[in-house]
Protein backbone atom coordinates (compact mmCIF):
# COMPACT_ATOMS: atom_id res chain seq x y z
CA UNK A 1 0.00 0.00 0.00
CA UNK A 2 1.29 3.46 -0.85
CA UNK A 3 2.08 5.47 2.28
CA UNK A 4 3.01 8.52 0.24
CA UNK A 5 1.77 9.38 -3.23
CA UNK A 6 1.69 12.32 -5.59
CA UNK A 7 -0.62 13.01 -8.52
CA UNK A 8 0.29 15.46 -11.27
CA UNK A 9 2.71 17.31 -8.99
CA UNK A 10 3.92 20.48 -10.70
CA UNK A 11 5.96 23.47 -9.59
CA UNK A 12 6.95 26.49 -11.68
CA UNK A 13 9.70 28.91 -10.75
CA UNK A 14 8.87 31.88 -12.94
CA UNK A 15 8.39 30.36 -16.39
CA UNK A 16 10.48 27.27 -15.68
CA UNK A 17 8.80 24.03 -14.72
CA UNK A 18 11.13 22.69 -12.02
CA UNK A 19 8.82 19.72 -11.48
CA UNK A 20 6.29 18.93 -14.15
CA UNK A 21 3.28 16.64 -13.81
CA UNK A 22 5.03 13.97 -11.77
CA UNK A 23 3.08 10.98 -10.44
CA UNK A 24 4.82 8.93 -7.80
CA UNK A 25 4.13 6.56 -4.97
CA UNK A 26 6.19 5.22 -2.10
CA UNK A 27 5.06 1.90 -0.62
CA UNK A 28 5.05 1.22 3.07
CA UNK A 29 8.46 -0.04 4.26
CA UNK A 30 10.34 0.33 0.99
CA UNK A 31 13.40 2.35 0.05
CA UNK A 32 12.74 4.43 -3.05
CA UNK A 33 15.69 6.09 -4.78
CA UNK A 34 15.30 9.34 -6.66
CA UNK A 35 17.98 10.04 -9.25
CA UNK A 36 18.54 12.36 -12.16
CA UNK A 37 21.10 14.81 -13.52
CA UNK A 38 21.74 18.16 -11.80
CA UNK A 39 18.76 20.47 -12.06
CA UNK A 40 16.34 17.62 -12.72
CA UNK A 41 14.03 18.79 -9.93
CA UNK A 42 14.81 16.18 -7.30
CA UNK A 43 15.32 18.58 -4.41
CA UNK A 44 12.32 20.64 -5.55
CA UNK A 45 10.20 17.48 -5.39
CA UNK A 46 11.44 16.98 -1.81
CA UNK A 47 10.49 20.56 -1.09
CA UNK A 48 7.02 19.91 -2.45
CA UNK A 49 6.55 16.78 -0.37
CA UNK A 50 7.78 18.45 2.83
CA UNK A 51 5.65 21.55 2.12
CA UNK A 52 8.50 24.02 1.65
CA UNK A 53 6.66 24.68 -1.63
CA UNK A 54 3.05 24.07 -2.56
CA UNK A 55 2.43 22.14 -5.79
CA UNK A 56 0.39 24.02 -8.35
CA UNK A 57 -1.32 22.09 -9.70
CA UNK A 58 -0.93 18.73 -8.03
CA UNK A 59 -1.90 16.64 -5.07
CA UNK A 60 0.15 14.89 -2.41
CA UNK A 61 -1.33 12.23 -0.15
CA UNK A 62 0.29 10.88 3.00
CA UNK A 63 -1.25 7.87 4.76
CA UNK A 64 -4.27 8.29 2.52
CA UNK A 65 -4.88 11.90 3.53
CA UNK A 66 -4.45 14.94 1.34
CA UNK A 67 -1.60 16.99 2.81
CA UNK A 68 -1.29 19.53 0.00
CA UNK A 69 -1.09 23.06 1.36
CA UNK A 70 -0.35 22.15 4.97
CA UNK A 71 2.46 23.98 6.76
CA UNK A 72 5.87 22.29 7.11
CA UNK A 73 5.53 21.84 10.87
CA UNK A 74 2.21 20.01 10.40
CA UNK A 75 3.74 17.70 7.83
CA UNK A 76 6.58 16.93 10.21
CA UNK A 77 4.27 16.20 13.13
CA UNK A 78 2.24 13.83 10.98
CA UNK A 79 5.35 11.72 10.52
CA UNK A 80 7.17 12.97 7.45
CA UNK A 81 10.72 14.19 8.10
CA UNK A 82 13.50 15.37 5.83
CA UNK A 83 17.16 16.27 5.69
CA UNK A 84 18.64 19.02 3.54
CA UNK A 85 21.03 18.82 0.62
CA UNK A 86 22.80 21.99 1.76
CA UNK A 87 23.28 21.27 5.44
CA UNK A 88 20.87 23.20 7.65
CA UNK A 89 21.86 22.50 11.22
CA UNK A 90 21.61 24.91 14.17
CA UNK A 91 25.29 25.86 14.08
CA UNK A 92 25.73 27.54 17.46
CA UNK A 93 23.90 24.93 19.49
CA UNK A 94 25.56 21.90 20.98
CA UNK A 95 24.96 18.82 18.82
CA UNK A 96 22.61 17.30 21.38
CA UNK A 97 20.31 20.35 21.39
CA UNK A 98 19.95 20.10 17.62
CA UNK A 99 18.41 16.69 18.15
CA UNK A 100 16.53 17.53 21.37
CA UNK A 101 14.59 20.19 19.48
CA UNK A 102 13.39 17.51 17.11
CA UNK A 103 12.27 15.31 20.01
CA UNK A 104 10.37 18.19 21.62
CA UNK A 105 8.64 19.63 18.61
CA UNK A 106 8.55 16.88 16.00
CA UNK A 107 5.70 14.93 17.58
CA UNK A 108 2.38 16.11 18.99
CA UNK A 109 3.08 14.58 22.43
CA UNK A 110 4.89 16.35 25.26
CA UNK A 111 8.22 14.90 26.28
CA UNK A 112 9.82 15.74 29.67
CA UNK A 113 13.19 17.33 29.07
CA UNK A 114 15.26 14.64 30.81
CA UNK A 115 13.65 12.02 28.63
CA UNK A 116 14.15 14.14 25.52
CA UNK A 117 17.87 14.47 26.22
CA UNK A 118 18.10 10.72 26.77
CA UNK A 119 16.30 10.05 23.48
CA UNK A 120 18.55 12.53 21.66
CA UNK A 121 21.67 10.86 23.06
CA UNK A 122 20.34 7.47 21.94
CA UNK A 123 19.75 8.78 18.40
CA UNK A 124 23.22 10.33 18.24
CA UNK A 125 24.65 6.96 19.21
CA UNK A 126 22.46 5.32 16.57
CA UNK A 127 23.89 7.49 13.77
CA UNK A 128 27.41 7.08 15.17
CA UNK A 129 28.01 10.45 16.82
CA UNK A 130 28.29 9.43 20.46
CA UNK A 131 30.81 11.49 22.40
CA UNK A 132 30.09 14.63 20.38
CA UNK A 133 26.98 15.72 22.31
CA UNK A 134 28.34 18.97 23.73
CA UNK A 135 30.36 20.18 20.74
CA UNK A 136 28.80 23.16 18.90
CA UNK A 137 27.35 21.71 15.70
CA UNK A 138 29.30 24.18 13.53
CA UNK A 139 32.58 22.55 14.62
CA UNK A 140 31.71 19.13 13.19
CA UNK A 141 32.90 17.93 9.81
CA UNK A 142 30.42 18.13 6.94
CA UNK A 143 29.88 14.36 7.08
CA UNK A 144 29.02 14.52 10.77
CA UNK A 145 26.80 17.54 10.28
CA UNK A 146 24.81 15.49 7.79
CA UNK A 147 24.51 12.76 10.41
CA UNK A 148 23.23 15.34 12.91
CA UNK A 149 20.51 16.15 10.38
CA UNK A 150 19.61 12.48 10.10
CA UNK A 151 19.46 12.13 13.90
CA UNK A 152 17.36 15.30 14.13
CA UNK A 153 14.96 14.02 11.49
CA UNK A 154 14.70 10.64 13.27
CA UNK A 155 13.97 12.49 16.51
CA UNK A 156 10.63 13.59 15.07
CA UNK A 157 9.59 9.90 14.89
CA UNK A 158 8.94 9.84 11.16
CA UNK A 159 7.09 7.15 9.25
CA UNK A 160 8.60 8.40 6.02
CA UNK A 161 12.09 9.88 5.90
CA UNK A 162 13.34 11.97 2.99
CA UNK A 163 17.13 11.85 2.69
CA UNK A 164 18.62 14.44 0.35
CA UNK A 165 22.12 13.38 -0.74
CA UNK A 166 23.48 12.28 2.59
CA UNK A 167 26.36 10.52 0.84
CA UNK A 168 27.60 13.40 -1.29
CA UNK A 169 31.22 14.23 -0.50
CA UNK A 170 31.83 11.07 1.52
CA UNK A 171 34.80 8.74 1.03
CA UNK A 172 34.23 5.03 0.27
CA UNK A 173 34.44 3.94 3.91
CA UNK A 174 31.96 6.61 4.95
CA UNK A 175 29.65 5.65 2.09
CA UNK A 176 29.66 2.08 3.32
CA UNK A 177 28.78 3.30 6.80
CA UNK A 178 26.03 5.54 5.44
CA UNK A 179 24.56 2.61 3.49
CA UNK A 180 24.55 0.56 6.65
CA UNK A 181 22.80 3.43 8.44
CA UNK A 182 20.10 3.54 5.77
CA UNK A 183 19.51 -0.21 6.20
CA UNK A 184 19.37 0.24 9.99
CA UNK A 185 16.78 3.00 9.66
CA UNK A 186 14.76 0.85 7.33
CA UNK A 187 14.94 -2.07 9.75
CA UNK A 188 13.07 0.12 12.23
CA UNK A 189 10.12 0.15 9.86
CA UNK A 190 10.71 3.63 8.48
CA UNK A 191 9.95 4.13 4.81
CA UNK A 192 12.74 5.96 2.98
CA UNK A 193 12.79 8.18 -0.07
CA UNK A 194 16.35 9.14 -0.93
CA UNK A 195 18.09 11.34 -3.47
CA UNK A 196 21.58 10.12 -4.23
CA UNK A 197 24.26 10.45 -6.86
CA UNK A 198 26.41 7.61 -5.59
CA UNK A 199 25.23 4.87 -7.96
CA UNK A 200 26.79 1.96 -6.12
CA UNK A 201 24.91 2.94 -2.99
CA UNK A 202 21.59 3.59 -4.65
CA UNK A 203 21.67 0.37 -6.65
CA UNK A 204 22.30 -1.81 -3.62
CA UNK A 205 20.13 -0.05 -1.04
CA UNK A 206 16.97 0.77 -3.00
CA UNK A 207 14.04 -1.49 -3.81
CA UNK A 208 12.88 0.81 -6.54
CA UNK A 209 14.28 3.81 -8.37
CA UNK A 210 12.59 6.77 -10.00
CA UNK A 211 14.40 8.95 -12.53
CA UNK A 212 13.70 12.65 -13.05
CA UNK A 213 14.95 14.69 -15.99
CA UNK A 214 14.05 18.33 -16.69
CA UNK A 215 11.34 18.07 -14.06
CA UNK A 216 9.66 15.07 -15.64
CA UNK A 217 9.60 11.48 -14.57
CA UNK A 218 11.27 9.52 -17.36
CA UNK A 219 11.67 6.10 -15.79
CA UNK A 220 10.76 4.03 -12.78
CA UNK A 221 11.61 0.48 -11.83
CA UNK A 222 13.90 -1.91 -10.00
CA UNK A 223 17.62 -1.07 -9.91
CA UNK A 224 18.28 -3.67 -12.65
CA UNK A 225 15.62 -2.17 -14.92
CA UNK A 226 16.97 1.32 -14.40
CA UNK A 227 20.59 0.29 -14.95
CA UNK A 228 19.70 -1.23 -18.31
CA UNK A 229 17.10 1.33 -19.37
CA UNK A 230 18.04 3.04 -22.62
CA UNK A 231 16.31 6.32 -21.79
CA UNK A 232 18.19 6.59 -18.54
CA UNK A 233 21.54 5.82 -20.09
CA UNK A 234 20.84 8.39 -22.81
CA UNK A 235 20.07 11.07 -20.22
CA UNK A 236 23.21 10.37 -18.24
CA UNK A 237 25.70 9.73 -21.04
CA UNK A 238 24.18 11.50 -24.04
CA UNK A 239 23.33 9.87 -27.39
Amino acid at each position, binding site marked *: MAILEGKGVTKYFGGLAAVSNVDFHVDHGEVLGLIGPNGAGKTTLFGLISAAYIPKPGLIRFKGENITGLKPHHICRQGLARTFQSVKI*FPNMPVINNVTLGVHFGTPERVPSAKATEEAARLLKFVGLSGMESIPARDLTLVNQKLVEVARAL*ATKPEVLLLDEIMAGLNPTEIAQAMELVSKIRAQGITILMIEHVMKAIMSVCDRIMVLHHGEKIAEGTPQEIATSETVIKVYLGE
Partner: protein
Amino acid sequence: MNKQTLTSKNFLIPGTILLVGLLILVTLPLYSSIYTMIFLSSIFMYIVLTMSWVMFSGPTGQISLATAAFFGVGIYVAAILGTIMPLLVVVLIGGLASAGMAVLVGSLTLRLKGIYFAIFTFGLLELMKNLLLWFEIKFTGTRGRFVVVADYNTVYFFMLAILALTLLTAYLIRRSKFGLALQGIGEQEEAAEHIGINVTLVKVFTFAISAFFIGAAGTIMATRWTYVDPYIAFNMNFSFTPVLMAIFGGIGPLFGPVLGAVIFAYLEEILITKFPYYYMLLFGVVMVVSVLYLPNGLVGLIQKWRVRTAGGEHGNS
Protein backbone atom coordinates in the same frame (compact mmCIF):
# COMPACT_ATOMS: atom_id res chain seq x y z
CA MET B 1 28.58 15.21 32.66
CA ASN B 2 28.59 17.21 35.90
CA LYS B 3 25.43 19.04 35.01
CA GLN B 4 23.86 18.60 38.43
CA THR B 5 26.70 20.19 40.38
CA LEU B 6 27.03 22.89 37.77
CA THR B 7 23.44 24.07 38.06
CA SER B 8 23.38 24.06 41.86
CA LYS B 9 26.62 26.01 41.98
CA ASN B 10 25.29 28.38 39.34
CA PHE B 11 22.15 28.84 41.37
CA LEU B 12 23.46 29.50 44.84
CA ILE B 13 25.65 32.56 44.38
CA PRO B 14 23.55 34.60 41.90
CA GLY B 15 20.43 33.53 43.80
CA THR B 16 21.75 35.01 47.04
CA ILE B 17 22.92 38.17 45.32
CA LEU B 18 19.54 38.51 43.64
CA LEU B 19 17.66 38.06 46.90
CA VAL B 20 19.82 40.57 48.80
CA GLY B 21 19.59 43.01 45.90
CA LEU B 22 15.82 42.71 45.77
CA LEU B 23 15.59 43.24 49.54
CA ILE B 24 17.66 46.41 49.29
CA LEU B 25 15.58 47.68 46.37
CA VAL B 26 12.27 47.00 48.11
CA THR B 27 13.30 48.75 51.33
CA LEU B 28 15.02 51.60 49.53
CA PRO B 29 12.25 54.22 49.93
CA LEU B 30 12.79 54.05 53.72
CA TYR B 31 16.23 55.62 53.66
CA SER B 32 16.99 57.18 50.30
CA SER B 33 16.35 60.51 48.63
CA ILE B 34 13.57 61.32 46.21
CA TYR B 35 16.15 61.89 43.51
CA THR B 36 17.52 58.35 43.91
CA MET B 37 14.03 56.90 43.67
CA ILE B 38 13.22 58.79 40.50
CA PHE B 39 16.59 58.02 38.97
CA LEU B 40 16.26 54.33 39.80
CA SER B 41 12.78 54.22 38.24
CA SER B 42 14.30 55.51 34.99
CA ILE B 43 17.05 52.91 35.12
CA PHE B 44 14.48 50.17 35.77
CA MET B 45 12.50 51.41 32.78
CA TYR B 46 15.55 51.19 30.56
CA ILE B 47 16.34 47.69 31.79
CA VAL B 48 12.76 46.62 31.05
CA LEU B 49 12.89 48.09 27.54
CA THR B 50 16.30 46.58 26.80
CA MET B 51 15.48 43.18 28.26
CA SER B 52 12.20 43.03 26.38
CA TRP B 53 13.94 43.95 23.16
CA VAL B 54 16.57 41.27 23.72
CA MET B 55 13.88 38.71 24.57
CA PHE B 56 12.68 38.79 20.97
CA SER B 57 15.44 40.29 18.84
CA GLY B 58 18.31 38.53 20.63
CA PRO B 59 17.57 34.93 19.67
CA THR B 60 15.69 35.59 16.41
CA GLY B 61 18.13 38.19 15.09
CA GLN B 62 15.21 40.20 13.72
CA ILE B 63 15.87 43.77 14.74
CA SER B 64 12.69 45.37 16.02
CA LEU B 65 12.45 49.15 16.16
CA ALA B 66 8.89 49.01 17.41
CA THR B 67 9.83 49.42 21.08
CA ALA B 68 8.80 53.09 21.08
CA ALA B 69 5.50 52.20 19.37
CA PHE B 70 4.61 49.69 22.11
CA PHE B 71 5.83 52.13 24.75
CA GLY B 72 3.64 54.86 23.27
CA VAL B 73 0.58 52.61 23.28
CA GLY B 74 1.14 52.09 27.00
CA ILE B 75 1.50 55.83 27.54
CA TYR B 76 -1.76 56.60 25.78
CA VAL B 77 -3.60 53.91 27.71
CA ALA B 78 -2.53 55.78 30.86
CA ALA B 79 -3.67 59.08 29.37
CA ILE B 80 -7.08 57.77 28.34
CA LEU B 81 -7.96 55.36 31.16
CA GLY B 82 -5.92 56.86 34.03
CA THR B 83 -8.82 58.92 35.37
CA ILE B 84 -11.43 56.20 35.40
CA MET B 85 -9.63 53.09 36.61
CA PRO B 86 -7.24 52.04 39.37
CA LEU B 87 -3.59 52.21 38.43
CA LEU B 88 -2.93 48.46 38.55
CA VAL B 89 -5.73 47.79 36.06
CA VAL B 90 -4.51 50.60 33.80
CA VAL B 91 -0.99 49.18 33.78
CA LEU B 92 -2.32 45.72 32.93
CA ILE B 93 -4.45 47.14 30.12
CA GLY B 94 -1.45 49.14 28.88
CA GLY B 95 0.56 45.92 28.64
CA LEU B 96 -2.25 43.97 27.04
CA ALA B 97 -2.96 46.68 24.47
CA SER B 98 0.70 46.66 23.44
CA ALA B 99 0.73 42.87 23.31
CA GLY B 100 -2.41 42.93 21.19
CA MET B 101 -0.80 45.29 18.76
CA ALA B 102 2.29 43.09 18.65
CA VAL B 103 0.14 40.07 17.75
CA LEU B 104 -1.54 42.01 14.96
CA VAL B 105 1.65 43.52 13.58
CA GLY B 106 3.70 40.39 14.19
CA SER B 107 1.41 38.00 12.36
CA LEU B 108 1.42 40.35 9.37
CA THR B 109 5.11 41.17 9.19
CA LEU B 110 7.27 38.64 11.00
CA ARG B 111 7.87 36.84 7.74
CA LEU B 112 9.85 39.89 6.63
CA LYS B 113 13.56 39.17 6.84
CA GLY B 114 16.56 41.20 7.89
CA ILE B 115 16.50 44.92 7.30
CA TYR B 116 12.95 44.90 5.93
CA PHE B 117 11.53 43.98 9.29
CA ALA B 118 13.57 46.70 11.02
CA ILE B 119 12.38 49.32 8.55
CA PHE B 120 8.78 48.21 8.83
CA THR B 121 8.79 48.40 12.61
CA PHE B 122 10.32 51.85 12.41
CA GLY B 123 7.64 52.86 9.92
CA LEU B 124 5.03 51.55 12.32
CA LEU B 125 6.29 53.97 14.95
CA GLU B 126 6.03 56.94 12.59
CA LEU B 127 2.62 55.80 11.41
CA MET B 128 1.28 55.57 14.95
CA LYS B 129 2.66 58.96 15.83
CA ASN B 130 1.22 60.77 12.83
CA LEU B 131 -2.09 58.93 12.92
CA LEU B 132 -2.54 59.89 16.54
CA LEU B 133 -1.54 63.49 15.84
CA TRP B 134 -4.09 63.70 13.06
CA PHE B 135 -6.76 62.13 15.25
CA GLU B 136 -6.13 64.44 18.21
CA ILE B 137 -6.20 67.61 16.16
CA LYS B 138 -9.16 66.56 14.07
CA PHE B 139 -11.37 65.17 16.83
CA THR B 140 -10.23 66.50 20.20
CA GLY B 141 -8.82 69.77 19.00
CA THR B 142 -5.81 69.58 21.31
CA ARG B 143 -2.48 67.97 20.64
CA GLY B 144 -1.67 66.71 24.11
CA ARG B 145 -3.35 65.08 27.06
CA PHE B 146 -2.87 65.27 30.80
CA VAL B 147 -2.10 62.11 32.70
CA VAL B 148 -3.19 61.41 36.26
CA VAL B 149 -0.09 61.69 38.39
CA ALA B 150 1.13 58.92 40.66
CA ASP B 151 3.62 59.69 43.41
CA TYR B 152 7.24 58.68 42.95
CA ASN B 153 7.03 55.80 45.43
CA THR B 154 4.19 54.20 43.53
CA VAL B 155 6.00 54.61 40.22
CA TYR B 156 9.11 53.11 41.80
CA PHE B 157 7.34 50.02 43.10
CA PHE B 158 5.38 49.43 39.91
CA MET B 159 8.55 49.75 37.88
CA LEU B 160 10.39 47.39 40.21
CA ALA B 161 7.60 44.83 39.90
CA ILE B 162 7.57 45.08 36.10
CA LEU B 163 11.35 44.77 36.09
CA ALA B 164 11.25 41.65 38.27
CA LEU B 165 8.60 40.07 36.05
CA THR B 166 10.50 40.93 32.88
CA LEU B 167 13.71 39.39 34.18
CA LEU B 168 11.91 36.31 35.45
CA THR B 169 10.14 35.83 32.11
CA ALA B 170 13.34 36.30 30.15
CA TYR B 171 15.04 33.76 32.38
CA LEU B 172 12.22 31.22 32.09
CA ILE B 173 12.05 31.58 28.31
CA ARG B 174 15.79 31.18 28.05
CA ARG B 175 15.85 27.88 29.90
CA SER B 176 12.69 26.37 28.44
CA LYS B 177 12.25 24.33 25.29
CA PHE B 178 10.32 27.31 23.95
CA GLY B 179 13.51 29.37 24.24
CA LEU B 180 15.47 26.63 22.52
CA ALA B 181 12.95 26.72 19.67
CA LEU B 182 13.32 30.49 19.46
CA GLN B 183 17.08 30.12 19.23
CA GLY B 184 16.66 27.46 16.56
CA ILE B 185 14.46 29.79 14.53
CA GLY B 186 17.12 32.48 14.73
CA GLU B 187 19.88 30.14 13.65
CA GLN B 188 18.15 28.26 10.87
CA GLU B 189 14.53 29.10 10.34
CA GLU B 190 13.85 26.67 7.51
CA ALA B 191 15.17 23.70 9.46
CA ALA B 192 13.17 24.79 12.51
CA GLU B 193 9.98 24.68 10.46
CA HIS B 194 10.77 21.24 9.12
CA ILE B 195 11.32 19.66 12.52
CA GLY B 196 7.86 20.63 13.66
CA ILE B 197 8.28 24.08 15.18
CA ASN B 198 5.38 26.42 14.48
CA VAL B 199 7.68 29.29 13.58
CA THR B 200 5.02 31.98 13.22
CA LEU B 201 3.37 31.10 16.52
CA VAL B 202 6.63 31.07 18.50
CA LYS B 203 7.74 34.38 17.02
CA VAL B 204 4.43 36.19 17.42
CA PHE B 205 4.03 34.92 20.98
CA THR B 206 7.49 36.11 22.01
CA PHE B 207 6.98 39.42 20.27
CA ALA B 208 3.72 39.88 22.17
CA ILE B 209 5.26 39.00 25.55
CA SER B 210 8.06 41.49 25.03
CA ALA B 211 5.52 44.13 23.96
CA PHE B 212 3.49 43.48 27.10
CA PHE B 213 6.33 44.55 29.38
CA ILE B 214 7.22 47.53 27.20
CA GLY B 215 3.60 48.71 27.22
CA ALA B 216 3.25 48.26 30.97
CA ALA B 217 6.45 50.26 31.50
CA GLY B 218 5.07 53.02 29.24
CA THR B 219 1.82 53.20 31.20
CA ILE B 220 3.51 53.62 34.56
CA MET B 221 6.11 56.07 33.26
CA ALA B 222 3.37 58.26 31.79
CA THR B 223 2.01 58.94 35.26
CA ARG B 224 5.29 60.68 36.05
CA TRP B 225 5.17 62.98 33.08
CA THR B 226 1.79 64.66 33.73
CA TYR B 227 1.51 65.79 30.10
CA VAL B 228 1.95 63.70 26.95
CA ASP B 229 1.50 64.32 23.25
CA PRO B 230 2.27 62.07 20.27
CA TYR B 231 5.81 63.43 19.97
CA ILE B 232 6.61 62.62 23.57
CA ALA B 233 4.84 59.26 23.61
CA PHE B 234 6.17 57.94 20.31
CA ASN B 235 9.69 59.29 20.65
CA MET B 236 12.05 57.24 18.49
CA ASN B 237 14.75 57.39 21.16
CA PHE B 238 12.81 54.71 23.00
CA SER B 239 13.35 52.45 19.99
CA PHE B 240 17.04 53.10 19.50
CA THR B 241 18.28 53.46 23.07
CA PRO B 242 17.38 49.87 24.08
CA VAL B 243 19.19 48.55 21.00
CA LEU B 244 22.30 50.57 21.90
CA MET B 245 22.09 49.47 25.51
CA ALA B 246 21.83 45.84 24.50
CA ILE B 247 24.80 46.13 22.14
CA PHE B 248 26.78 47.98 24.78
CA GLY B 249 26.06 45.35 27.41
CA GLY B 250 26.27 42.31 25.15
CA ILE B 251 23.45 40.04 24.05
CA GLY B 252 24.69 36.57 25.06
CA PRO B 253 24.02 35.96 28.77
CA LEU B 254 21.03 37.57 30.46
CA PHE B 255 22.97 39.97 32.67
CA GLY B 256 24.47 41.63 29.58
CA PRO B 257 21.47 43.79 28.66
CA VAL B 258 20.92 44.60 32.36
CA LEU B 259 24.52 45.72 32.74
CA GLY B 260 24.33 47.71 29.50
CA ALA B 261 21.13 49.46 30.49
CA VAL B 262 22.33 50.33 33.99
CA ILE B 263 25.72 51.70 32.95
CA PHE B 264 24.31 53.45 29.90
CA ALA B 265 21.52 55.13 31.82
CA TYR B 266 23.90 56.13 34.61
CA LEU B 267 26.40 57.50 32.12
CA GLU B 268 23.68 59.49 30.41
CA GLU B 269 22.58 61.00 33.72
CA ILE B 270 26.14 61.91 34.79
CA LEU B 271 27.04 63.41 31.45
CA ILE B 272 23.82 65.37 31.14
CA THR B 273 24.16 66.89 34.62
CA LYS B 274 27.94 67.42 34.73
CA PHE B 275 28.59 68.40 31.10
CA PRO B 276 25.30 69.66 29.70
CA TYR B 277 26.98 71.30 26.69
CA TYR B 278 29.22 68.43 25.71
CA TYR B 279 26.84 65.67 26.69
CA MET B 280 26.03 64.45 23.18
CA LEU B 281 29.67 64.70 22.09
CA LEU B 282 30.96 62.68 25.03
CA PHE B 283 28.17 60.19 24.63
CA GLY B 284 29.09 59.71 20.98
CA VAL B 285 32.73 59.12 21.86
CA VAL B 286 31.75 56.48 24.42
CA MET B 287 29.55 54.77 21.83
CA VAL B 288 32.24 54.74 19.15
CA VAL B 289 34.88 53.43 21.54
CA SER B 290 32.61 50.67 22.80
CA VAL B 291 31.67 49.56 19.30
CA LEU B 292 35.34 49.57 18.23
CA TYR B 293 36.81 47.84 21.24
CA LEU B 294 33.89 45.86 22.68
CA PRO B 295 32.41 44.02 19.70
CA ASN B 296 30.59 41.65 22.07
CA GLY B 297 29.72 44.28 24.62
CA LEU B 298 30.69 44.37 28.25
CA VAL B 299 29.75 40.71 28.56
CA GLY B 300 32.27 39.85 25.88
CA LEU B 301 34.94 41.69 27.82
CA ILE B 302 34.07 39.84 31.02
CA GLN B 303 34.08 36.48 29.25
CA LYS B 304 37.45 37.21 27.68
CA TRP B 305 38.85 38.12 31.07
CA ARG B 306 37.35 34.98 32.62
CA VAL B 307 38.84 32.76 29.96
CA ARG B 308 42.22 34.33 30.55
CA THR B 309 42.11 33.90 34.32
CA ALA B 310 40.72 30.37 34.10
CA GLY B 311 43.57 29.44 31.77
CA GLY B 312 41.24 28.92 28.83
CA GLU B 313 39.55 26.03 30.56
CA HIS B 314 36.11 26.94 29.27
CA GLY B 315 37.30 28.67 26.16
CA ASN B 316 34.53 27.29 24.04
CA SER B 317 31.52 27.62 26.28
